[in-house]
């Protein structure tokens, strides 16, 4: 539908920037750029981060799959493997718990004046990404190949229509959020 727009590099860079402005504004207003809020989530005492993420997932999922159904959008699921998604994910988690920000919220934290995010977090993530570029040729042929499943989505893996996953998943997520509120978290 917006094929011509997708191909315009200059316009896309501007759109990317504007999306980032709104994204950063929302993350900061949500409190997700605060170390205390993120660590509170990981210590399971403050569920703000999960509430933001899960309501984004429910809203986004319904809209994006509706757009796809109407032929107005294409999905871009990332490829993965157990060796990449799970091992890499657990390493990420260790860093997440130590740093107390993630790559997106660390940038928002810098903007609010958090100097640990700038001189520790951002510098560290750049070093970590650079080190990964060094390790990549070996990891790509080794660990990251374990249990490769490509760009599969959950409905594809289960051989069911997306609606059959979306409806129960939204129900479970909304139920979980409702439960968290009801027990005062």
């Amino acid at each position, binding site marked *: 539908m917006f094929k011509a727009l997708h191909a315009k590099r200059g316009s896309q860079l501007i759109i*990317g920037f504007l*999306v980032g402005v709104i994204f950063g504004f929302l993350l900061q207003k949500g409190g997700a750029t605060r170390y205390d809020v993120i660590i509170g989530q990981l210590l399971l005492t403050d569920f703000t981060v999960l509430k933001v993420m899960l309501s984004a997932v429910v809203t986004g999922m319904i809209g994006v799959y509706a757009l796809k159904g109407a032929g107005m959008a*294409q999905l871009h699921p990332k490829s*993965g493997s157990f060796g990449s998604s799970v091992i890499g994910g657990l390493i990420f988690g*260790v860093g997440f718990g130590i740093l107390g920000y993630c790559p997106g919220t660390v940038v928002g934290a810098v903007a609010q004046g*958090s100097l*640990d995010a700038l001189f520790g977090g951002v510098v560290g*993530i750049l070093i970590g990404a650079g080190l990964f570029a060094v390790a990549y040729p070996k990891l790509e042929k080794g660990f990251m190949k374990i249990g490769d499943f490509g760009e599969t989505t959950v409905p594809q893996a289960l051989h069911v229509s997306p609606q059959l996953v979306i409806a129960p998943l939204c129900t479970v997520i909304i139920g979980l959020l409702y439960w968290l509120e009801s027990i005062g978290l």
Partner: protein
Amino acid sequence: MEWLAMERWSPYVVGAGIGVLSWLTFLLSDKAIGVSTSFARTAGMIEKLFAGAKVKDKAYYQKFPPVIDWEWMLVLGLLLGAYISVVLSGQFRLEWVPPMWAAAAGTNIFARWLTALVGGIIIGFGARWAGGCTSGHGISGTMQLAVSSWLAAISFFIGGIITAKIIFNVFLK
């Protein structure tokens, strides 16, 4: 316009807003919101300053060339957007040590800086190993129902919860 000056919005409003923003990125840009690839590109740009054009020969930088793209601009915008939000609520303040860290570990700047640096290196390495972060996998990938993203997002939180619990309940107790 009082709501723009509020320090915090409901997490559900913020989450729904991010969800709607995702519709727009799929529609207008055929892309999903993500952040950590830009760190890899920036690392490549910095390496290029020191090592020159041969950086491009690295397999990883052939996959993710060190250039400014849509997502890189998104991260730049994120910085501005968060700044606008914090200035509107009058909460901008330079701070080396976050309150929860200070309460548990004290106000030593070096200790917090070193911890953040080490955590940053690990999360940066892990984000690229997993092929995404809390944004690209945790929000954008899970909403597309990608198997890789659900596994990664669950792993982020398992690793994060265990690590934070060990740090706060064992080391800093």
